[in-house]
């Protein structure tokens, strides 16, 4: 039967599908196929695509019933979490990757599961729109690879409270050590993928630029393999605003990766801060930012704890079977959607840490060579038979007669047969040890039910009194109002230098406050 979707919905779905594929092509082809001698990376990536295809539509419906994608995007912009530019940009691609493989193997047609496709694409597009509303773009790549996510009120606090440092002093050295160790730990705990690291910016800070660096899911939480080894890490998400001199961040891309001109040199770091936040916090909470010595001490301690966790975790992972490695890696990729459930208060471990039996059945194909070549063909060479188009076509980046994701044929609006859904989630399987530890949040270590109850009952202070809709464009003409003052003061609540300073501060004021 023809679909119930409208022409406008299909036009929007296909436009988002194509934009996502183009962005993904650029990202993937500037990195080559990922590999690891420890993890079978590409087999687990391919498997995660199937799991996304089969499970996300129903989980999107479950999240949507509790919170709209726009509200999750708006809340995510106020804190650091797994809902960020990299996860938001990858959601359509991981999902459509499963669809493309199945189309290529003749297991589905481009006209199948159209309601499922619409659910996921529409949800992810709307969440991206809200998250990126500060610049009015959908992806960072639309904004010349700039990730200017945060409003003035948050950036003023980051700048005002940033603690100065110079090469050779304790804080400067501690920051370098922390960033390296946190990056290393993030790659390992995410089974070789970069999803635990995110950057936003650059933000202009006078003659300097600020990059806001996020490390997420660091502590005992959603990933069962962190139980025990991460018990000493007290904050699940950490954010470090870094102010740099003589450095222009010319690229902060759709995966939150940065490049700089001249290339990033730690000697150019002039000030930093450290914060934690999550779906239960009112914005960013400073971490050991009393003074430079306090912050340096804590960063050194964190570095020791993360290095220890890295060693313990590596030993655990090195003892895993191939099946366990593939299950863990695929769940990290598949899990790019999981924090939506945390924001909405609908998180269930089995939704996010199991492979659907329909995805699991694909494992016999997932040898290293097939995984590598299938991923390379689908996202790099665009060479699968199902991806080919009319010989007149020149696609956006690849300039070849092929596109990454098959569009939905519009004939389904007339008389072409189609199907609506692949059906509900089926039983999940996993070879991993079950989760036993509590979930680390800004409100302490909680059970799953406590996390969900807290999320359902939480309204951020900056959302009160219609604050959710008070953007910088509104502030521009209403900065002297009580509502603007309350909005800014809610963001300034934990600030050392700006608490209670309100909405009339200009950047020059921030600089004076910083300089004492």
């Amino acid at each position, binding site marked *: *039967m023809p679909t119930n979707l409208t022409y406008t919905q299909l036009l929007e779905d296909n436009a988002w599908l194509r934009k996502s594929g183009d962005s993904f092509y650029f990202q993937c082809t*500037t*990195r*080559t196929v990922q*590999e*690891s*001698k*420890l*993890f*079978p*990376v*590409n087999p687990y990536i391919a498997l995660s695509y199937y799991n996304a295809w089969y499970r996300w539509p129903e989980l999107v419906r479950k999240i949507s019933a509790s919170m709209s994608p726009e509200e999750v995007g708006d809340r995510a912009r106020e804190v650091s979490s797994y809902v960020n530019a990299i996860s938001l940009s990858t959601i359509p691609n991981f999902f459509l990757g499963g669809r493309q493989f199945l*189309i*290529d*193997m*003749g*297991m*589905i*047609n481009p*006209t199948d599961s159209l309601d499922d496709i619409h659910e996921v694409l529409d949800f992810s597009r709307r969440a991206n729109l809200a998250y990126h509303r500060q610049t009015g773009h959908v992806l960072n790549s639309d904004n010349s690879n700039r990730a200017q996510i945060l409003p003035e009120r948050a950036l003023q606090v980051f700048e005002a409270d940033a603690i100065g440092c110079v090469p050779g002093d304790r804080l400067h050295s501690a920051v370098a050590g922390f960033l*390296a*160790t946190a*990056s*290393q*730990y993030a*790659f*390992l705990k995410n089974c*070789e993928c*970069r999803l635990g690291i995110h950057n936003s910016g650059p933000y202009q800070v006078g003659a300097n630029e600020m990059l806001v660096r996020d490390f997420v899911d660091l502590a005992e939480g959603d990933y069962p393999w962190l139980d025990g080894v991460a018990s000493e890490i007290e904050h699940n998400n950490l954010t470090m605003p870094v102010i740099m001199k003589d450095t222009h961040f010319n690229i902060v891309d759709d995966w939150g990766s940065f*490049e700089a001109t001249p*290339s990033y040199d730690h000697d150019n770091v002039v000030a930093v801060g450290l914060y934690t936040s999550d779906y239960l916090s009112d914005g960013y909470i400073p971490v050991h930012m009393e003074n430079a010595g306090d912050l340096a001490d804590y960063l050194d301690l964190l570095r020791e704890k993360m*290095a220890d966790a*890295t*060693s313990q975790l*590596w*030993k655990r992972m*090195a003892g*895993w*079977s*191939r099946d366990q490695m593939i299950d863990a890696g695929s769940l990290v990729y598949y899990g790019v959607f999981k924090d939506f459930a945390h924001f909405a208060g609908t998180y269930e471990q089995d939704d996010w840490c199991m492979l659907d039996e329909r995805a699991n*059945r694909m494992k*016999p*194909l997932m*040898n*290293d*060579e*097939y*995984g*590598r070549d*299938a991923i390379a*063909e689908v996202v790099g*060479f665009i060479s*699968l*038979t*199902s991806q*080919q188009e009319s*010989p007149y076509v020149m696609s956006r980046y690849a300039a070849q007669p092929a596109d990454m994701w098959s569009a939905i044929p519009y004939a389904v609006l007339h008389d*072409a*047969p189609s*199907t609506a859904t692949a059906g509900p989630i089926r039983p999940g399987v996993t070879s991993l040890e079950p989760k036993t530890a509590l979930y680390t949040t800004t409100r302490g270590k909680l059970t799953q039910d406590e996390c969900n109850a807290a999320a359902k009952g939480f309204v951020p202070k900056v959302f009160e009194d219609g604050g959710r809709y008070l953007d910088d464009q509104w502030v521009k003409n209403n900065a002297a109002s009580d509502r603007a003052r309350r909005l800014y003061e809610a963001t300034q609540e934990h600030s050392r230098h700006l608490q209670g300073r309100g909405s009339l501060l200009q950047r020059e004021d921030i600089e004076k406050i910083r300089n004492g």
Partner: protein
Amino acid sequence: MSQPQVLDDKWGKKAMTPTVEHFHRAVREVVAERFAASGRAWEDFVHDLACEITAEDLQAVEKSLLDTGYTFETSAHVSLAESPEKYKPLAVVSDSGNQVTDDEGRKVVGTGDNVFSAPDLTGTARFVGTVDVVMEMLLGGVPPDTIAIIDDSGGTLTAPILEGFAGVICMGGTVRSHLGILTREYNIPCLMAAELDGLADGDKIHVQYSKPATDAYAERDESARVRISKIS
């Protein structure tokens, strides 16, 4: 349109790689046979549990390729360790015997792309390619002046010992790969996409890390690549 559409593809072509072509074509054939036997319309067939492709079907697809004598290339060591019958042995660094020499008359045993510019470095090449070697260095410490030769552009195999390396030479990836990102954070000089010829474990080598960082978006420029010279 009431059939598997990939079977009737105006612009279709073979996949680029043999395993993808074999696997996908074989699955298409199984689906087509099952669909024809069902006597049903595609939209009634496609999500029907009774008609689904199963893990057993896919095992048969894999077997059909292995039965031809084909073996798979390995990425992760665990794959080869668990199923040695399915995988080719790991490649080793070859020695053509035709190496050019540098300005000081030393054999150039490799080149690579520089992640960032750092002082040139002399050290001992040590191949760090297996879990066992990493575990040994994790427990016993990384020997001083180790320039790690890593056949892995990822950041996990060497995660617990990376900080101990004086330099890194990676035989894969690009300067934007995970290992490139991590070595930049640790300020450990690193070459990516290295091509080696005649380098052996334990060789004393000199690496021109002082060359400018490689532009990830530019075409490959041989003259810009960093040389690795063998001292002894």
